[in-house]
């Protein structure tokens, strides 16, 4: 039996089928986006759960959006920023003390230098950048969004995005001492 047919049997309406489809297509991607903000996998799972529930609740509107990909990224980014702004609000709205049960691994550049792992050092250096630089690097280099797309997603001017990319590269250069300047 085809997967789609099985889904049709399990779920009675297109809204739930759509939810399954977007969870399959975007679940893993959104977890990584959320992690790039929160640096905590447990919290990221909670954020993405919320994102999909929001999508489901707004099915009539969201399912017709032409560029759904950009939209779900925007929702996830906004949710992640909300959580970063306020642990308290997260707790109140979701009713779960997510911060008490998850701990972030030690990803500090210093700890990884000791391990002499260059790739891990680069990864941890990116994740140690201030939020506005980290998100720009992640969306540009990891997600491969264009400057225009990032600008629309973050509601930030294109020149600001370019400046942030430039500044991020400089900061990474400082962190990864001894390396030459990044250019792209």
């Amino acid at each position, binding site marked *: 039996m085809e997967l789609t047919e099985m889904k049709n049997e399990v779920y009675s309406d297109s809204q739930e089928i759509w939810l399954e489809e977007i969870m399959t297509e975007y*679940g893993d991607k*959104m977890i990584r986006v959320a*992690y790039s903000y929160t640096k905590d996998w447990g919290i990221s799972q909670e954020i993405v759960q919320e994102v999909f*529930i929001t999508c489901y609740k707004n099915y009539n509107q969201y399912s017709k959006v*032409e560029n759904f990909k950009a939209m779900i990224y925007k929702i996830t980014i906004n949710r992640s920023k909300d959580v970063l702004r306020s642990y308290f609000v997260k707790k*109140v709205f979701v009713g779960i003390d997510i911060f008490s049960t998850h701990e972030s691994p030690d990803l500090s550049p210093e700890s990884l230098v000791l391990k002499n792992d260059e790739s891990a050092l*680069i*990864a941890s250096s990116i994740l140690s950048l201030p939020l506005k630089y980290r998100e720009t690097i992640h969306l540009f280099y990891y997600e491969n969004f264009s400057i*225009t797309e990032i600008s629309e997603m973050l509601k930030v001017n294109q020149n600001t995005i370019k400046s942030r990319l430039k500044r991020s590269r400089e900061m990474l250069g400082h962190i990864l001492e001894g390396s030459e300047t990044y250019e*792209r």
Partner: protein
Amino acid sequence: MKDKLDDVRTILEDGVYKGHKFTEESKRKVRHSIKKKNTNWFPIILTVAVASGFYGFGAFYLINEWDLFNQNNSQSAEERKEPLHTANADLDLNVDLNGDLPEDIPLKVNDELLGSISLPLNIENVIPSVFSKPLISARTESDGYNISLTYSGDFFEINLIENVDSPENIENYKNVRDKIWTDEETLLINGQDAFYSADQKEMHIFTKEKYFILHGADKEQLLQIANIIDTEKPVQKINLVKYEEVMMENVELTEIQQPILLPLDFHEKVDFLKNNKSPFVTAEKNDTSFMVIFSYSSPINTNDISVTQHYSESENGNQHIIEQIQRTYTLEKEVEINDRKIFLYSNGLYYKAYFTHQNNLLTVESLISSIPIEKIEDILTAIEIE
């Protein structure tokens, strides 16, 4: 190092991201949550049935008693019409504060919304290092809405959030809370309950109808901001307007039919831009408007200087861009040169300048450190509008 950044995807996927997925457990929780919402049919039917019976009986009773009712004291009928919430007679708090818009919808930041907020729209007096005006955004919540103000400095951002909700919800949020910060401190600000965490650099203030989140500065600074929040300002029922995003697609310059006022050799007409060999051009359009951005490199520090032509078929189609500049930047200078009136704005970090011509809005944007203000005038003056 270029290669290494180009390999970020591989580096992250083979390292930090390896093995991390949106789990089946999470999917199950999502399904459970939506099922819970969908399977409440029995109580709903029961409620409807009981309510129908009740109101049916009530209607029957009232029809029979109508004459007698009218003959009795009419004052008591007037009293029955009084709103349940007398604290703020202008606002029916049984109505959704988000105006029935779906959750998580961006809202237009208009004068009515700005007029309703209690947060300060200028904190220069308490924190002089921030740029003069905040970036403002607003979104609907499930039962209300929030307004977010971001004040930027060179290396920091201060976020202020105002959440508007019913008094019952606000009280509930406050009551159900536990201590979640190990260093949480309880405060009283303007007679209102407040909580602060030094570790999170975050402060929460509760009033009857609003709660505020202040984030991104030390305690003294947050306290100073907290003291200028108008916590006495009552909630008003305002007309929330959905922010309609202007969607455009990237196109080649040649795909734009209307006249483009920026020639490809424009940099040769402006001394300050002459070090550029060519502009970096991006163009976007939709059915009724287009935007062409020419980006140049500053001779001072190589940062971008952008010259943009915004065109709209509609006469006031660019007005929202002008309003946004006016709201978030401070007017530095107004110059009338020949056939155009140039407005020069800054926010402490960036310059933004513009003039309008027919259905076009011409703008220049750059970091203040990348260009002297008079050179911006030169650029805008060099654009030929004939």
